[in-house]
């Protein structure tokens, strides 16, 4: 089982639309897609309209490519749900939110080790943000 983390804390996954891989997307009518951390967001540009949830994998918390992928998807105009999934630690929650993720999906073991309070500690991610100041 997994836990979905948002600004209001832990919740169960409410997504019922399933996930396709990038390759299987053209053949199927998927509303959700799984992106690996080495994906090229440009490949999704023509399909963004039809997607409701994009889930970006974090194979390791030290692999920061997902942050750039999220930023690029938002710059392309993607308005749907954007989820970081995998090894994301609570200390990265503010970064994830700032680059455009709506939520983080972690497994139960990580949720037990880093309980809800540690994530809520960073729910103030809109504060103290140099990027917001510099971009206006």
């Amino acid at each position, binding site marked *: 089982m997994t836990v979905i983390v948002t600004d209001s804390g832990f919740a169960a996954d409410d997504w019922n639309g399933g996930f396709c891989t990038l390759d299987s997307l053209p053949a199927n009518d998927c509303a959700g897609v799984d992106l690996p951390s080495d994906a090229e967001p440009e490949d999704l540009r023509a399909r963004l309209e039809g997607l409701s949830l994009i889930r970006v994998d974090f194979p390791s*918390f*030290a*692999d*920061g*490519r997902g*942050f*750039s*992928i999220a*930023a*690029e998807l938002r*710059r*392309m105009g993607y308005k749907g749900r954007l989820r970081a999934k995998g090894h994301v*630690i609570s*200390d*990265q929650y*503010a*970064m*994830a939110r*700032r*680059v455009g993720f709506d939520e983080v999906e972690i497994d139960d073991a990580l949720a037990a*080790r*880093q*309980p809800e309070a*540690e994530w809520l*500690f*960073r729910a103030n991610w809109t*504060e*103290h*943000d*140099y*990027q917001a*100041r*510099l*971009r*206006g």
Partner: protein
Amino acid sequence: MYQYNDFDAAFVAERNAQFRAQVERRISGALTEDEFKPLRLMNGLYLQLHAYMLRVAIPYGTLNGAQMRQLAMIAETFDKGYGHFTTRQNIQYNWPKLKDVPDILDRLAEVEMHALQTSGNTIRNVTADHFAGAAADEVEDPRPTAELLRQWSTDHPEFQFLPRKFKLAVTGSAADRAVIRAHDIGIQIVEKDGEIGYKIIVGGGLGRTPMIGKTLAEFLPKADLLPFVEATVNVWNRLGRRDNKYKSRIKITVHEHGIDDIRARVLTRFEQIKPTFKGVDRDLFAQIQQNFGAPVYRNAPVDAHTAMRLANPAYASWSDTNITAHKNDSYAIVSISLKKHGATPGDASADQMRVMAELAETYGHDELRISHEQNVILPHVHQSDLPAIYAALREANLATANIGLISDIIACPGMDYCALATARSIPVAQEIAERFDELKLEHEIGALKIKISGCINACGHHHVGHIGILGLDRAGVENYQITLGGDGSEDAAIGERAGPGFSAEALVPAIERIIETYLDVRSEKAETFLQTYRRVGMGPFKAALYPDSKASAA
């Protein structure tokens, strides 16, 4: 100088509170050691050979007297009474305790300082020309640009888990004192048709694969700086190799893909990112710039200095080497050597820090700089105050007249402190300095940069030393390779390896043979070591270094 606004102060306080909690969560087990590591690193905390090491940021090497005093206080309260100034214009404390670190960070915040992003796979402390704002040859003071980049890179959400570290340097002069061609991105402020802009150089770096940076943009309009740099780091974050840490720096990405391919990618990304900057950054830049106005210069005669030069040969010698022309004719830039013969390059005691703080407050418009060459600078001194400064420096063992000379050596901490080192660096620097002091040849030799690294990671910049020394481990024995002809300036070059390495005992005599050869073959006294090397090449030096292998050297 830059003064924190409410936002900066609140940011650092919040960040320190987060780190305090992270230390507690590490102790409780909520964070694994693997997870804690990048978090402590992005807050400047390393685990070294014997202890933790805290690296405190001195953004673009600029600080005031109160900040220097606080660094002295921290050295005395939390460490062993000294600190080590580094080649990124930072200061390192070698013996802090983990439990004290959150308190140290709070004490730093009291004087508007921090240890953010001095380590880890992040954008590191932005460095700049240490003569910024004082140099006569400057197009524009690089510090406002460096400060803008500091704010942009601090806690940048996309760039806290990069493939590897990322270093930026800025210079406002064509004469490069900031080694911008050995940085991931080097920025030179340039003027074209009356407009000020930036030349952007990418993919330079030292380490085990030294590269000279390549030009990414010949002239970038000022307003495009942040989106352009962001596009560059974004391209590398996605493209840079994560399978091998020795191939992860942007220099390798540029090398593997080619500069034209990288430029095309950056420009595409730049077009996408530019609209996300609405121009507020330009307003902020204008505000930042106001913090860096010129000091209120004093108008007074400079006779005291000229008279003292005639009266005191030691003073004359010191002022020959340690003083640089200021853009104001009555002023001088004073370099304080942290390279007393036989001392550890870059170390200063708490007492010495306080002396330098007081000199800055009394005579130097309350400004100090740390140079990447590990010395301290008083950038704005009226020449009539030079004799008093010299006298105070002498009292504090800080008046060594060797700036730019053979004993003004950059050395990494080496095996005396560093977990990565394969050989000692500091004792080598000490021996070379003492030997040439003993020979009384230093001033005769003139301008010469020796740089020493205790391992292949090249923290001592040996690749760009006129004479570079690299300490390696050969089956448990220290072995030192020599390179010649390296140069970190605007004519940047990677030094050429002279041949087989030398044992610790044979190294200083080998350096002596190089110097004897130089003195022998230079065309005149004014021809520097580097000029001579460029004229005559490796041949005569090789012959002197390896006299017995003339035949087999071919």
